[in-house]
């Protein structure tokens, strides 16, 4: 009897140890193993740094030197400038004051015109450095202030102080556009210019609807290379450009133009309404084949109007004739079109030949390109004189301005991209974050911080390059093809696949836990199940 009891006890202990081992393997080893193996590889990301972007300063420090004939004028002007710019959170002026030497003063007063005065200033001071500007007093001025393409603003005397401040605020530094580069919603300037990038393609398409009746003598490639090439060479610090040209023959567009009699050499002109013009862009896009390029493309098109429909004049929305030497229009973020009409003399021959006025047409294209690339033309300020542009080269301070705008735009865009990426990766917990993405994000964060420091220091070109690398790294990280939630096993399905496997196994194991506990505590078990 005792032997049977002992045998029963050993059998029972065997059974209990077997049950315990089931529990051990499944719950203690199996569960954590399953959890570990379905873990997703995620590189750790600097979430704290990303959320601290809002506190980073976004102001660009720029140097401004005020040179006056005497101390009082200089102090007054500097006071007004500081007052005007003290609230700005996008630009910080580092103003330095100095008195013009007697020699330079007399030279400035005796030179014939302002252009020579600029040269004289350029001898003493370095006008080629980016992110610097000089406000210099010069007595014999017709207007309050005078501004041309170099980084020099001449003013007459202390009474011109307010004009100086206005010019600096709205023309030279264009604080409104700078604010717009940072804002959530796009302002007009941001809606017009192309989004930031490392490079662009510029394609000139010469549209020739009627090759058998009209000859267009134009070397498109050379014109593009010379005019637009010289223009974009000046902007090489910002982007790199590829220039292309092509001819689109037999592309006929129905302008629905109405004939209007007038007193020109033709005796008539054809009016085309502004509402009709955007359909021309659609027709151009069909054949311009810009989707083959990898970078965004600025389209420039020259439409050679046929003799029977020449000259073509655009009528604006108020039904008034657009009086301009060239009939042209542009579309934001797309490009520009020039409607070129041959003259009556050209069309009089049996075989009409039109030699377009390349200088005028290219001048129009350059003015359109300026807006598309971000150079905003400032409005006129009373008392301030702005020398009109006479060549394709943009003004030096316009390039500086463009650098500032693009730096701010790229920086804020990179920050927003990283913030939304961090939010996305935090929300969807089963996306694998591999090393490439982690590296891109880390490099973007570092670049943003470096760029902010450089902006504070005033090193504009370096800040631009750093902000561009931040922007590109953030875009690469966000657009990474592996960040597709679809590719990875979703969390809820983790349970849906494993529960049917584990539940039938866990059920008896968990139930036997109760018996196990009782046995370990030493209480006898008598659980019977009859059959």
């Amino acid at each position, binding site marked *: 009897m005792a032997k049977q009891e002992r045998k029963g006890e050993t059998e029972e202990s065997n059974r209990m140890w077997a049950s315990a081992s089931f529990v051990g393997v499944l719950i203690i080893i199996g569960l954590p193993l399953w959890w570990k193996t379905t873990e997703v590889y995620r590189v750790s990301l600097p979430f704290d740094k990303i959320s601290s972007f809002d506190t980073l300063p976004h102001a660009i420090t720029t140097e401004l030197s005020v040179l006056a004939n005497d101390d009082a004028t200089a102090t007054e002007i500097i006071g007004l400038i500081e007052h005007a710019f003290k609230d700005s959170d996008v630009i910080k002026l580092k103003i330095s004051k100095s008195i013009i030497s007697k020699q330079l003063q007399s030279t400035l007063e005796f030179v014939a015109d302002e252009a020579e005065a600029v040269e004289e200033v350029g001898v003493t001071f370095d006008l080629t450095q980016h992110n610097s500007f000089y406000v210099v007093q010069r007595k014999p001025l017709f207007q309050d202030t005078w501004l041309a393409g170099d980084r020099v603003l001449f003013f007459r005397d202390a009474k011109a102080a307010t004009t100086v401040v206005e010019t600096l605020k709205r023309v030279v530094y264009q604080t409104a556009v700078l604010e717009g580069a940072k804002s959530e919603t796009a302002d007009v300037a941001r809606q017009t210019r192309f989004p930031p990038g490392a490079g662009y393609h510029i394609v000139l398409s010469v549209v020739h609807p009627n090759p058998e009746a009209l000859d267009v003598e134009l070397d498109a490639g050379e014109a593009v290379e010379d005019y637009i090439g010289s223009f974009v060479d000046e902007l090489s610090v910002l982007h790199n450009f590829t220039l292309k040209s092509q001819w689109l023959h037999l592309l006929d567009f129905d302008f629905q133009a109405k004939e209007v009699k007038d007193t020109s050499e033709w005796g008539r002109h054809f009016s085309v309404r502004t509402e009709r013009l955007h359909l021309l862009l659609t027709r151009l896009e069909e054949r311009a084949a810009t*989707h083959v390029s990898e970078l965004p493309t600025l389209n420039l098109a020259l439409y050679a109007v046929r003799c029977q429909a020449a000259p073509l004049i655009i009528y604006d929305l108020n039904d008034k004739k657009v009086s301009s*030497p060239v009939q042209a229009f542009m579309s934001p973020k797309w490009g520009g079109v020039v409607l070129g009409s041959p003259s009556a003399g050209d069309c009089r021959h049996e075989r009409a030949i039109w030699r377009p006025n390349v200088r005028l047409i290219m001048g129009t294209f350059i003015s359109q390109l300026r807006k598309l690339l971000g150079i905003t033309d400032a409005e006129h300020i009373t008392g301030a004189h702005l020398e009109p542009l006479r060549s394709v080269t943009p003004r030096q301070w316009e390039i500086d301005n463009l650098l500032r705008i693009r730096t701010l735009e790229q920086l804020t865009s990179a920050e927003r991209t990283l913030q939304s990426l961090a939010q996305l990766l935090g929300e969807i917990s089963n996306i694998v974050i591999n090393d490439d993405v982690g590296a891109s994000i880390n490099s973007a964060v570092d670049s943003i911080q470096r760029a902010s420091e450089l902006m504070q220091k005033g090193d504009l070109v370096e800040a631009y390059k750093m902000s561009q690398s931040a922007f590109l790294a953030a875009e690469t990280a966000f657009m990474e093809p592996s960040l597709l939630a679809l590719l990875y096993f979703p969390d809820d399905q983790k349970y849906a696949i494993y529960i049917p496997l584990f539940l039938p196994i866990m059920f008896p194991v968990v139930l036997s836990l109760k018996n196990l506990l009782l046995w370990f505590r030493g209480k006898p078990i008598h659980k019977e199940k009859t059959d």
Partner: protein
Amino acid sequence: MYLNNVISSVLLLIATSFSITSCAEIPEQFLKSNHSNNWAVLVDTSRFWFNYRHVANVLSIYRSVKRLGIPDSQIILMISDDMACNPRNPRPATIFNNAHEQINVYGDDVEVDYRGYEVSVENFVRLLTGRVPPDTPRSKRLLTDEGSNILIYLTGHGGDGFLKFQDSEEITSQELADALEQMWQKRRYNEIFFIIDTCQASSMYEKFYSPNILATASSLVGEDSLSHHVDSAIGVYIIDRYTYYVLEFLENVHPNSKRSMSEFLAVCPKSACLSTVGVRRDLFKRNPDKVPITDFFGSVRPVIITTDPINILDAPKRKKKPENKTKVPEKREYLPQFPMHLVQNTRTG
């Protein structure tokens, strides 16, 4: 007192004129709705010949959208199977919306971006979120920005909460909602108009949670969308009811139309469609009554007239990059088109 009035009115006049001149740059369209370009993503998800009607559906919308001005470069057309040049099509290279061959919706000028096996759930989600493989050409990418209004049209076989792709996989409504949210995060759209023509279609837009989306579906949950009629020459259903009436409506819309979106949303009453058209407008800020139909179906391209060309005095000449002048003329030759040298080798060897 009188002087004060005069001064204040004069000041007001100056202020308004000043604001008008400073606003001279902004075209009118910007003020009404703040989108600057239009895109369309049109997807047909069904394979096999008996799903001819789905291809006719998506091509009807393609045709209308193109006619109203959206260029091919801003339309992404995804068609899962080829019906036009299918050997079973008795009229090759045509797809009609009507048994009486009224409109050839395939046309002569069609560009399909994703076709055949390329139309998959993964490619669709990649297209929407922008996470396409690096070699993808620009015509296959959705290059929208913060000012783009996008028209998304899906058709095929669907069910409660999913849409079937090519009879082998599905996209769930949650995945679609997540994809649209990622688009919003990256500011890839201004407003979206979402149309879906499948069975139980409204379940696909129930889960949306991103702002500025107006959605409509051809049937509610629990209802089936029905086809319109059979073409006995082809032997299959040729178009679905909802899209048939949509096409009829859009054929009467021209690029300068003043019709509103609410007219579009009411295009197919229950008597015609036999299923109830569902609309979701809580995520859409504007009132569809006041939104012109061309905001989504037409194409806005703001046009700014240039009046200030630059007066260039001297013609510039670009400095040419120095090429090495010593270009040895390399000798080229035509190679024989058949490897006779191998024949001769074996003959001698």
